[in-house]
């Protein structure tokens, strides 16, 4: 009898824990495929402030927060080879990139579709001149087959939508950076 109760308690414990929302994983927010057109420059980029993200409430749903998004942004730009180095501190840099998460949404029950809308600004540090700004909107659908657990699927949708957004960013930067 005691064994049955323990088993039922364990089962419900697993169900409850698996139903808790988690923030997207930074490593999974970094695009694995290198962007097609990459410009290599000798410039140093500082990744500045990221704003507009939201913290994940375990009882609600997975959200993209500022810290995780910034880390994914830094790692992606480092791997892109667009710049000689990508820094996050106040050391000397040629450019500064700022990002504001304007909107993030996950919709759907079985196939979860995430949309992410981010405003990016690239400044020349020496002149404080804005050399590029653009709003990038990305979409990603996490199919039911990706995970049978709803909160997990929503997290995967968020990770995918960040990857798509960062791919767009690298692609745009490779076009707009002075050659």
């Amino acid at each position: 009898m005691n064994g049955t109760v323990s088993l039922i308690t364990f089962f419900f414990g697993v169900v409850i824990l698996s139903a808790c929302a988690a923030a997207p994983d930074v490593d999974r927010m970094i695009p694995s495929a290198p962007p097609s057109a990459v410009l290599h420059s000798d410039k140093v980029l500082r990744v500045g402030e990221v704003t507009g993200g939201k913290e994940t409430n375990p009882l609600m749903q997975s959200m993209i927060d500022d810290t995780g998004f910034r880390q994914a942004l830094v790692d992606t730009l480092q791997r892109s080879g667009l710049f000689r180095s990508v820094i996050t501190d106040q050391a000397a840099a040629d450019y500064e990139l700022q990002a504001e998460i304007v909107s993030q949404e996950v919709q759907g029950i079985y196939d979860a579709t995430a949309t992410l809308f981010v405003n990016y600004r690239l400044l020349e540090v020496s002149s404080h001149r804005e050399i590029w700004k653009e709003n990038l909107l990305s979409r990603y659908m996490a199919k039911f087959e990706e995970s049978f657990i709803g909160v997990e699927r929503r997290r995967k949708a968020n990770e995918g939508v960040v990857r798509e957004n960062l791919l767009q960013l690298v692609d745009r930067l490779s076009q707009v950076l002075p050659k």
Partner: protein
Amino acid sequence: MKLKYLAVVLSLVVSSCVYAPPEPEVWMEKGASLTQYKAFEVLPAQNETGKTFGFDVGATLTAKLIAKLHAKGYSVQPAASPGEDVLLLRSSVMVLEEGSLITLFPEAAYCTVRTALIDKKTGGLLGEMVTSKEFRTGGLLEGGGAGAIGLAGSEPLLIDLIAEGIVNELEKRIKQH
């Protein structure tokens, strides 16, 4: 008996939520304001979902935006008076998913629209908004309202509510002091 009344009240409350127009998420250029605009030009909206539907998604959104602007008393080009500041609206339907009313696996219907706000005179981008709406068709609590939507086809109604949300937001910002 009391339960019956409670169910009716609950159904009305939930239905009013289902039909409520969404509030767009807005990004505005620093220092930009919409207070001087009373006239609009609505560019043909694009379907950027990568899918085709049983109706013209772009044309439906364009028509709904024009109708809702007219209904609020704004002039829409080419009827705008000369010299008026004209705000261009350029919209794209980015996501549109059809809901399913199969009771065992009801799927949500949802839509996301991106709208750029452009000053016609300068061509400068003043702001952008992203507007999303979702119907959880057949869900336990939304069964009443969403069931009726599903029977009529939820996508045009989603677009109608999104157009209303966009125009409401524009009006709010135009009347801002």
